[in-house]
């Protein structure tokens, strides 16, 4: 089975640039289409409003900033992909992170989902709550978990 479509989930952190670089590397090597997904974490915003740690105006401001961060991150990744001759479709979504990533991956009929390294899991609780874990477990297609940033940088550089 040829890998024709790759989805990559990014968070806007510096670490997720490494994830994006590996996804670009794979897309180039496999001549696959690439879609980058950023999800505005509305679940956390909602929880913080509900528990009254956030006031309304604060939540609105955070939501706005998260959207801007997502937009900026996606634009950066599209440019990075272009510089390597890879077309990348930017997808800015809102909602529960793992649900949006999994649903979009299904919708794209992606053959591969690329995600950042998973954190150390201490308990069953974390498996249930951690968004990365849930994406990994619920993905409709094979998942590549990116590790070894130095090697990723090397591969990306020589691409």
């Amino acid at each position, binding site marked *: 089975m040829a890998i024709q479509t790759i989805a990559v989930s990014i*968070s*806007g*952190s510096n670490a997720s640039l490494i994830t994006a670089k590996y996804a670009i590397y794979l897309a180039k090597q496999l001549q696959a289409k690439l879609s980058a997904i950023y999800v505005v*974490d509305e*679940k*956390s*915003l909602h*929880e*913080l409003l509900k*528990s*009254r*740690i956030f*006031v309304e*105006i*604060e939540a609105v401001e*955070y939501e706005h*900033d*998260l959207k801007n*961060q997502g937009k900026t991150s996606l634009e950066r990744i599209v440019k990075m992909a272009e510089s390597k001759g890879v077309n990348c479709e930017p997808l800015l979504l809102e909602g529960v992170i793992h649900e949006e990533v999994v649903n979009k991956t299904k919708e794209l009929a992606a053959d591969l989902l690329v995600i950042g390294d998973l*954190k150390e899991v*201490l*308990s*069953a*609780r*974390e498996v*249930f*709550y951690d968004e990365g874990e849930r994406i990994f477990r619920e993905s409709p297609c094979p998942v590549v978990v990116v590790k070894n940033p130095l090697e990723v940088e090397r591969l990306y550089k020589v691409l």
Partner: protein
Amino acid sequence: MKISDYLKKEFCIMDLKATNKEAAIREIACLLSDRGKVKDKERFIQDILERESLGSTGIGHKIAIPHSRTDVIDGFAIGFGRSRAGIDFKALDDDKVNLIFLMGADPQELNLYLRLLAELSKLLMENAFRRELLSVSTAEEVVEVIKKFEGAGATIK
């Protein structure tokens, strides 16, 4: 990322001297600053108080979580203070606050900050967690309690 990755025993005050909200925030902020977590202490305090002016972070159950995004912190910082007598934080339930978690994050670390705040809020909703934090004697025990509840499978709903 977990709260215990950031909240170390060095960032805990077991018996706050402060008797009011601003003094309590200042006391914990000074500790974080003394430990090298804050680049500009006065700016940090000002940013926290500015956020407080939008509405109290005294969320009830004897807890307050004063917080702010601020560029005087690299990454994320959290400090803990406990007041035996309780402090008037103008909390939502009008009760005095005994447990204070002071948090600040670099504005670039939006997702990390949101998740850690949400994680702390989940932990603090548990009666047993609050009870243990109120009863422990040392900063080491505070960190142990947090680790215990972060790793507690029994809390899965």
